[in-house]
């Protein structure tokens, strides 16, 4: 038992202070206003202070911190992407994640479990090789493995998928991890707060004032804030914010759903993903199976659940694990995914001076939390995006320079 827990046992009063101070009314002005108190916004606030010494920062959250997609995803962290720019970016995120519990002094349960992307068809195998080759090339540990190695890591898996979709192999990505998603938001909140950033919950942005192409202020339900720099880090709410500054983007909102089972003793040690069966699953440290599937097929700005989703997902789960018939699903939920046409984020500067975008996170936002915070902080501090996110600039769509991340998803027969 670690000694630090004794501290709690021996003290009469609960010794832990607030994670972050409660601010009710914003000041008249801030150097930077961050819209969105999720992992990304809070990480940006943290790195603005830590890396760039910018602490006169307000983080505005319309609900509670970490209550959006930060708290709704299935917590998978990985960097086995297809394009070198994608792999490099997410690898940088993984590297920060690996030391983040220590850095934030909060146990994020960052748990490296290994990640298998199962291939059920020859064409999927081709894509796995493509990703593996690109990953290897930039120094990320991914390789194509055969059914034997999958069976060794997960002996419970029915490799024939009940005869419907035999598994031919997989992309194995050793650094694949899961983490406590809420903790990431809380840790960054505490860190940012410690440096002096002010976090406002229940604070909704009603408008953003732009004069002569420059940001000059933010209207909120708690009053007006003068500022020259605004970061929008609001994932599923991005179109509502960009509409305020009349900025067109390709982002379309689709719900992404997930569900959990009741807890059981750990048996699934790895993270499994099957593109063909539209399943991803891991077992949490509480013992629940955390499961997700593909995006809902049409645009809705809502976190409602559907029966179709859970029926389809469980059907495929049973193909993979027939013995789960009587294991029960406890809860399903949804987040709003801000999808882009090329399955890559939109980050950096915009045509409006002082308005920065951290968006287009679709289904891959959680894993990018640390690096997006860091790179967006750099962008704001220098009014220039670092090379690492150059490929993700908004102007790529005007320039027909879409990232290749969509390539993998579209390769079929």
């Amino acid at each position, binding site marked *: 038992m670690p000694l630090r827990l004794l501290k709690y046992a021996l003290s009469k009063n609960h010794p832990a202070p607030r994670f972050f101070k409660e601010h009710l009314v914003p000041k008249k002005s801030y150097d930077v206003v961050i819209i969105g108190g999720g992992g990304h916004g809070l990480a940006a606030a943290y790195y603005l202070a830590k890396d760039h010494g910018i602490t006169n920062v307000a983080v505005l959250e319309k609900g509670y911190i970490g209550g959006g997609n930060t708290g709704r995803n299935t917590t998978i962290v990985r960097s086995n992407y297809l394009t070198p720019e994608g792999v490099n970016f997410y690898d940088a995120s993984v590297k920060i994640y690996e030391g983040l519990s220590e850095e934030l002094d909060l146990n994020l349960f960052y748990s490296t479990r290994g990640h298998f992307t199962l291939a059920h068809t020859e064409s999927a195998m081709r894509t796995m090789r493509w990703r593996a080759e690109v990953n290897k090339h930039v120094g990320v540990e991914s390789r194509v493995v055969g059914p034997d190695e999958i069976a060794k890591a997960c002996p419970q898996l029915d490799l024939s998928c009940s005869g419907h979709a035999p598994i031919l192999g997989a992309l194995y990505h050793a650094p694949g991890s899961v983490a406590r998603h809420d903790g990431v938001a809380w840790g960054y909140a505490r860190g940012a707060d410690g440096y002096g950033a002010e976090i406002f919950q229940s604070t909704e942005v009603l408008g953003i004032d732009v004069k002569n192409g420059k940001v000059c202020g933010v209207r909120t339900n708690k009053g007006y804030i003068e500022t020259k720099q605004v970061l929008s880090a609001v994932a599923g709410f991005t179109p509502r914010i960009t509409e305020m500054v009349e900025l*067109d983007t390709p*982002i379309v*909102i689709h719900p992404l759903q997930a569900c959990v089972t009741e807890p059981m003793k750990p048996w699934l040690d790895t993270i499994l993903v099957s593109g063909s069966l539209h399943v991803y699953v891991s077992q949490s440290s509480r013992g629940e199976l955390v499961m997700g599937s593909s995006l809902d097929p049409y*645009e*809705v700005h809502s976190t409602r659940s559907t029966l*179709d989703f859970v029926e389809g997902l469980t059907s495929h789960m049973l193909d993979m694990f027939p013995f789960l018939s009587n294991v029960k699903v406890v809860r399903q939920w949804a987040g709003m995914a*801000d999808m882009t046409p090329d399955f890559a984020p939109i980050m950096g500067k915009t045509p409006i001076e002082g308005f920065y975008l951290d968006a287009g996170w679709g289904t891959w936002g959680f894993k990018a939390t640390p690096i997006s915070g860091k790179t967006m902080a750099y962008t704001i501090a220098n009014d220039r995006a670092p090379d690492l996110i150059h490929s993700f600039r908004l102007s790529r769509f005007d*320039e027909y320079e879409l990232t290749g991340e969509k390539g993998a998803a579209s390769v079929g027969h």
Partner: protein
Amino acid sequence: MKLLTCPMNGSRPLSEFVFGGEYRESPNPDTCTDKEWAAYVHNRSGAPGNKKEWWYHAPSGTWFIAERNTLSDKVARTYLLTDANAQQAKPAQEYGQ
């Protein structure tokens, strides 16, 4: 599962339909600038609200227009693109919130 009304077949479960994206008028390709065209191709009006959308009823092969609120997911009316009368008529029911 939600229900959707196909103008040709009536109220059917959503699983019979394919979402075809927002209905958008393209700029004139002969006169617009490259930037305008790129914006048309890539950008979407992503903010929630009342949208005209393409939907396809797969069993009958019917494309039609649905006027839907993307926040409430309520459909005000559906009609064939060629039904000019329907387009000009007032919505039969208001969008819910």
